[in-house]
């Protein structure tokens, strides 16, 4: 059974991709890095995402090597500019 991931895109990334979210199926055992690879592999405009973007899994910053679980909310976080 594949992993069902919900990817979220904010600000510049949302504008780049033209969507705020995307549901993605990945093979079991996939990591954050695998999700980035899968998306960038789709070609334009996805290949304009950074090769190692900041990512939050279930609202916590995550490492590329972090494994994903089905139902995870994976947010692509452009460079932040609060304040």
């Amino acid at each position, binding site marked *: 059974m594949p992993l069902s991931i919900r990817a979220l895109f904010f*600000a510049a990334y949302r504008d780049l991709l033209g969507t705020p979210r995307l549901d993605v199926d990945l093979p079991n055992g996939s990591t954050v890095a695998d999700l980035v690879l899968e998306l960038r592999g789709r070609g334009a405009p996805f290949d304009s995402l950074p090769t190692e973007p*900041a990512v939050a899994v279930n609202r916590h910053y995550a*490492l590329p090597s972090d494994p994903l679980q089905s139902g995870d909310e994976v947010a692509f976080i452009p460079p*932040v*500019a*609060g*304040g």
Partner: protein
Amino acid sequence: MIHVAVTSDPIDTIAVLARVGADDHGAALLFLGVVRNHADGRSVSGMTYEAYEEMATPVLKEIASEVVKRCGTDRVTIVHRVGELAIGEVSVAIAVSSPHRAEAYEASRYVIEEIKKRLPIWKKEHYTDGTDKWVEGMKPAAPERAGSLAERPI
């Protein structure tokens, strides 16, 4: 007492300040981030702030908790605005109080610097020439831990 919020309403700065203070506190500090009329030499007409709200609130709480541990004050209030802001409007208000002034300055500065580093909020500058642009911010640092399931917060 920690209080944090992300809000689309104008920030009531007086209310933010009123949340801190205690009978044994000798110093209170209110920091306001304000939308200004220029950036990198370009004339700015306004700003749009966008947040990943479900994450921004816990990150603010985390920053406030760190201040309590590091700076020895237990009174921290942080309110960040989102939405369309005009020049002169307050984008963020940070109030802290502490027994002595040194900790208040340290705590206030810590909060705003951490916000700039890791709060999932973005801003788009609207220029007076009609164009706009997402502000180039900072890439949040990856967490300091081994990437294992066991250590990942659930």
